[in-house]
């Protein structure tokens, strides 16, 4: 119970910190949306139009900082994130809904794949200590994990798009293709997803392999594993149920925590491949100084990671009584 309270406390405080950060940043930094707008009208805008626009965009109010803060919290709680400057008059929420499926599809799938694959490979590699797998993999994956995501992406583009022409340069499907649930369309989507997915996979899998391998090695030295061996249980059973399971548990939270990193990397992958997902949209918002969009995306990513962490925490607690006891 105490554990649960602490996790809720953590969740609430992190959420509040992210919200507040989001509120403060644009107000601390130079420039404001009104000015950005003036720049866009290139010297032609007259004061009345300027004022009218400010009202339309909801900027330039004379509220005190505290009032603005409270307004902001209330609006956010009600899911009103404001109007996107770039996609005016579209509300931010519906703009993001355009990008979200692409990111969930690409980044979500590949992240889970990397985690599962990496965990299995790491487990086997530790089990066969000193085998070929175990001596070859770590150095390779230490290297690939140190590769910047975007560099792996650029290499993929150079080799498989520019030189060999096997895969498209970017975007999420062939332009001009009707967006319908046909095999042609699905094939085009998959074709466009191969390179970015491979990039994320190659770069992120190493971390999982190494973590799992190290956890597993430590676990294998534990008494209960030796006991199981002495009892003559089947090796597969020991590997999966005894050692594997316990080595995996600390990894779950690690997985959730590292979602932030993966998303960070995915932003750059989306950028390199012009993939129209959340990360790409964030960079576009940054470029256009679209504050409302930028903030909401940041909030979205934070909340996603936070929820994942809490879910992973709770799952760990359910599966592993020791965690609860430690509190």
């Amino acid at each position, binding site marked *: 119970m105490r554990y649960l309270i602490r996790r809720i406390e953590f969740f609430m405080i*992190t959420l509040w910190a992210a919200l507040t*950060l989001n509120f403060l940043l644009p107000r601390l930094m130079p420039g404001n949306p009104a000015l950005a707008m003036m720049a866009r009208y290139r010297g032609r805008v007259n004061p009345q139009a300027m004022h009218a626009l400010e009202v339309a965009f909801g900027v330039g109010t004379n509220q005190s900082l505290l009032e603005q803060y409270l307004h902001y919290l209330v609006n956010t709680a009600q899911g009103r994130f404001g109007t996107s400057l770039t996609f005016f008059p579209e509300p931010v929420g519906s703009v993001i809904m355009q990008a979200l499926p692409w990111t969930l599809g690409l980044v979500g799938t590949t992240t889970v794949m990397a985690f599962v694959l990496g965990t299995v490979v790491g487990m086997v590699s530790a089990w066969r200590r000193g085998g070929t797998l*175990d001596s070859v993999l770590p150095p390779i994956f*230490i290297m690939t994990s140190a*590769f910047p995501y975007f560099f792996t992406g650029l*290499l993929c583009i*150079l080799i498989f798009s520019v030189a060999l022409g096997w895969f498209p340069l970017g975007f999420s499907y062939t332009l001009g293709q009707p967006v319908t649930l046909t095999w042609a369309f699905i094939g085009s989507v998959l074709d466009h997803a191969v390179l970015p997915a491979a990039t994320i996979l190659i770069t992120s899998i190493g971390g999982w392999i190494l973590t799992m391998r190290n956890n597993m090695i430590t676990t294998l030295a534990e008494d209960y594993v030796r006991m199981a061996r002495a009892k003559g249980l089947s090796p597969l059973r020991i590997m999966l149920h005894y050692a594997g399971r316990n080595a995996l548990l600390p990894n779950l939270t690690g997985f959730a925590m590292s979602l*932030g990193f993966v998303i960070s990397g995915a932003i*750059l992958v989306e950028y390199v491949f012009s993939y129209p997902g959340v990360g790409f949209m964030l960079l576009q918002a940054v470029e256009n100084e679209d504050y409302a969009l930028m903030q909401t995306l940041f909030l979205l990513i934070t909340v996603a990671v936070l929820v994942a962490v809490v879910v992973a925490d709770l799952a760990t607690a359910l599966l592993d009584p020791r965690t609860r006891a430690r509190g």
Partner: protein
Amino acid sequence: MDIRGALADAPVTGPGRRRHGFTDLARAVRSNRKASAGVILLALFSIMALVPQWLTPYDPQSTSFRPSLAPSLRHLLGTTAYGQDVWSQLVWSARESLLIAVGVGLLATAVSVIVGVAAAYLGGLPDHVLSLVTDVFLVIPTFPLIVVLATYAKSGSLTVLIAVLVVTGWSYGARQLRSQALSVRNREFLEAARVRGERSLYVIVVEILPTMTSLIVANFLGAALYAVLAAAGLQFIGLGNASDLSWGTMLYWAENNSALQVGSPLWEIMPGACVALLGTAFALLNYAFDEISNPALRPAGRRRAARATDS
């Protein structure tokens, strides 16, 4: 950026085994192949950073050559679309990239040590608050935050970039150091020091920190790796100072001029490879430190050999 998470979550082993002096560390590094590779790479990059003028015939910013030349003896890696020598740019860029790595590594480690050890030593409410803050920083996705921060503060200064990376990069270390410090907190030699009436600061600096040398070094390496990758990413998307010379900035210019598509791939690939190799150097060292401090992780063959020499 994953490796950092991976390594940070590696199980923390008993403190006794972690107690190394620097001479022990040096010996351990020599006998570990991964560590040696890391040190050699790092040394190469350091030479590039320290004496670039010995390695390059041209001013890296000079635009006096013919644009987009293919590699030749006069221009080992060809020229950029602006008529700059790619090799000269590559070598001179090592300085800023390395500076960011080391600067962020040192500062972030310092913050981690202060927060982590203070939390463990003070215990109670201060520990609760500090741990909570650490966890908050850990969970907030750093890269989007950096992007947002760097946009607002794009005065292009190196200081801002380093500050942003430190703010977003200290929390992993703090968490690890805290649990490490917790495990030594109640050991006899600390009790003895307290009984002698030593001040807290003395206990922390003289008694606790030395037990954590290798973990602190590992943290420095992790933070440096993080800084290399994050800084390159930021500069690549144009959030650094585009007038500076660094690998990330080179990548930015190359990407902006579609270097891959218009036939000057080396302009884009080489700085990327340098970032990857510098990152690899830090990652190799980091991993090696894990092996050094946790003998169970050492490669099987050499583990036996090491045991033989130890005894």
